[in-house]
């Protein structure tokens, strides 16, 4: 480690990168915190040592031969070139080794695929570029987004400890219980991976995959999307907090309360008008979190992939169409439906923002009630 570090620092830094001391990296696969992850680790080490042993024998013989059987030592080459006995031997031995290896691997695999008798079930839905968690036993659901500020990514601020591995709202699961995950996707294929659980399963659009875990240690476990899912594939981490059953129960109740409160607030909001300043400030924040990845912070999009909002007919003229596309998305494109992802207030604010930022000076305000009207099918 010291060697790599000194190499890194001795190079002329043509970089704006923040100078954070990196936390030390483990050199091996994690043992994880579940019985299964421990078994997987053991399999990994077994096959690793088998490979090392075979390598030591084969390369040992090879290097012995390279040292001893060289023309420079004046040796005469032998002329043998066949031996059925030896050929059979070195076909049979590897077959035996592989059979020995296949037995524990088969056992672990069968255990990993047994998703029956789960205590808690969570529906995990990937979308570009965030995760959505829905607890099928309670009425809890939420999106989980990258929490690392953009300024750290573009090297304007110093990077913090959990850079790119932190989210706004982590998944919470109880310890000691069998938690079943149902995986699916709203758009492209994603893959939900938490190394500490040895769970990696693809989230395929239109299909549901299953996986499970039983975590014994309370703690915070981090992972990332493992399947290339487009531009921001590197920026959709996973954070899971395992809590003791009592703490988990408390969390569930708190969540239910929070959701009920948000619904009540939403109703109140329908009768209120927000000011331009308030809409623009909430709108800017929402835009940065949800829209800027594709449409870009300057509203110009990426030509050929993501359309511009700046100066676009939709953002300047067609207000019902604008509200509609934000609410319902556009089928067959990367434009998602935000009706369930954002509150009425946030949707109203972000549309107002898009119609008044970057020189789109329409001066138009969109209120929560306008959004609600379109949602109810009255705004067309």
């Amino acid at each position: 480690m010291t060697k790599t570090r000194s190499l890194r620092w001795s190079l002329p830094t043509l970089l704006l990168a923040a100078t954070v001391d990196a936390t030390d990296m483990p050199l091996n696969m994690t043992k994880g915190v579940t019985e299964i992850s421990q078994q997987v680790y053991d399999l990994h080490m077994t096959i690793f040592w088998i490979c090392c042993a075979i390598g030591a024998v084969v390369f040992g013989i090879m290097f012995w031969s390279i040292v001893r059987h060289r023309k420079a030592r004046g040796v005469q080459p032998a002329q043998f070139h066949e031996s059925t006995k030896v050929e059979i031997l070195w076909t049979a031995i590897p077959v035996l080794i592989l059979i020995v290896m296949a037995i524990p691997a088969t056992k672990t695999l069968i255990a990993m695929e047994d998703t029956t008798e789960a205590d808690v079930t969570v529906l995990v839905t990937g979308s570009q570029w965030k995760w959505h968690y829905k607890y099928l036993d309670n009425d809890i659901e939420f999106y989980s987004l990258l929490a690392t500020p953009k300024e750290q990514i573009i090297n304007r601020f110093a990077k913090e400890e959990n850079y790119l591995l932190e989210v706004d709202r982590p998944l919470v699961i109880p310890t000691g219980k069998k938690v079943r995950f149902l995986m699916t996707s709203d758009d492209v294929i994603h893959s939900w991976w938490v190394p500490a659980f040895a769970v990696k399963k693809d989230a395929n659009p239109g299909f549901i995959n299953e996986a499970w875990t039983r975590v014994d240690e309370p703690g915070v476990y981090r992972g990332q999307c493992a399947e290339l899912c487009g531009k921001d594939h590197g920026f959709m981490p996973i954070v899971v907090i395992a809590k003791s059953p009592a703490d988990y129960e408390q969390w569930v109740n708190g969540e239910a309360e929070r959701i009920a409160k948000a619904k009540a607030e939403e109703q109140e909001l329908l009768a209120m008008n927000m000011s331009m300043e308030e809409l623009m400030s909430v709108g800017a924040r929402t835009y940065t979190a949800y829209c800027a990845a594709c449409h870009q912070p300057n509203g110009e999009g990426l030509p050929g992939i993501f359309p511009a909002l700046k100066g676009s007919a939709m953002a300047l003229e067609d207000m019902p169409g604008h509200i509609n596309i934000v609410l319902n998305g556009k089928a067959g494109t990367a434009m998602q439906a935000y009706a369930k992802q954002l509150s009425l207030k946030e949707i109203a604010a972000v549309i107002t923002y898009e119609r008044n930022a970057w020189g789109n000076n329409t001066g138009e305000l969109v209120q929560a009630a306008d959004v609600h009207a379109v949602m109810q099918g009255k705004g067309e």
Partner: protein
Amino acid sequence: MSAVVTDHEHEHHDHKPAGIKRWLYTTNHKDIGTMYLVFALIMFFIGGAMAMVIRAELFQPGMQFVEPNFFNQMTTVHGLIMVFGAVMPAFTGLANWMIPMMIGAPDMALPRMNNWSFWILPFAFLILLMSLFMPGGGPSFGWTFYAPLSTTYSGDSTALFVFSVHIMGISSIMGAINVIVTIFNLRAPGMTWMKMPLFVWTWLITAFLLIMVMPVLAGVVTMVLTDKYFGTSFFDAAGGGDPVLFQHIFWFFGHPEVYIMILPAFGIVSSIVPTFARKPLFGYASMVYATSSIALLSFLVWAHHMFTTGMPVAGALFFMYCTMLIAVPTGVKVFNWVATMWRGAMTFEVPMMFALAFIVLFTIGGFSGLMLAITPADFQYHDTYFVVAHFHYVLVTGAVFSIIAAAYYWLPKWTGHMYDEKLGQWHFWCSLISVNMLFFPMHFVGLAGMPRRIPDYALQFADFNAFISIGGFLFGASQLIFVWVLVKCARGGEKATAQVWEGAEGLEWEVPSPAPYHTFETPPVIK
């Protein structure tokens, strides 16, 4: 037509048009072989430049040089160029040069098709490279172009990508047909199947793999095209399709493709090791059978790339067992090479050095492949840098090292000059050290949990990535020595004898160096 014939009544033996026309119109296997090899080298540097962009961005955490979208285009096009533009054409070039000479044939059996199969290739890559300059950029969905990222969610460069892959595929299929027809029909009398050099054998098997799987690739890119532009839903669940179907079709092509890129390498190493050990190849027949079994098994293991897609336990077990089984014939090959060296009288010229490095480093790639076959462990390795390390060990220190070894081995035969041994040794040692700095630490980064195909990473991976990037830049720079050696050797140097290497055996070493423009117009006598 008869007028043409009389005009050429006193045609010189070595007559060929001068200048650019020679290369455009040529049907000569040696000219076409040279063009393939030069083309592959150019592509190697273009694909390599893209790897340098990737490594520069990954040198430190944070986004420094490129946008994530461009980063994805670099990983995608780097993969496509290295697979279809560098490794495969290089092997086809070697096949063109060497197969007719090794079997005592005057040329390839289908020379006009040979010309065409080369000349469509530059256009395929021109189209692919041009797509990078389209609005929205080139393909950015990885060289494996998984749907629906490559269909519903891709940019309009996808059409160019599909067209370009079609042309590459046609070129490969034609090249493969030519190899098969040549080997079946043009062997000199007495060159029986079990007397053929292993390079010819491995290429024959490779050619069969090619004509079996390239049409599958053509099918899958066409399905991507129609899903994106013509309203079909092969891979769209909303229309009754299945995105995982894409992966099944792709990897049914993709896994044999992996062996297409390594079987000719086995042939090359099986030619070089006996020459420099001055001892016949150990277990010739078992080498032929092992190659055939690897080729057959390659059709039964495709889903080991897809363990995490969610398949029935029985399916996962079947693909795990078949994949583990591949280690057996592959092991036999390595054991045979070591047995060939045993009690030989070895010398260590550059081709032998690269061949020895191949044996060790390819085997390391094989070990990580065996680890990846263990399905439960694969759940942890899959789509991490561990996989990146694995396939670069088999493709760079495997396929590419074998191609470089072949180039040094046969350069004297091609040019008539010995290459500069000292420079060649420099090239070898620089490459060997830097390539391991580049790819070995990737194993650890992957085990620690870094996913592949990401433009930015968590801080714990920073030191290793900086080190890997330095290895990458050094490996890239080391290949400039190779170009220097090649240019120097083409221009002059110590005259090479017909046999070139003391221990070399085979028909190609019986013709003068450089090999005359036409060889074996009358078939040689095989003992």
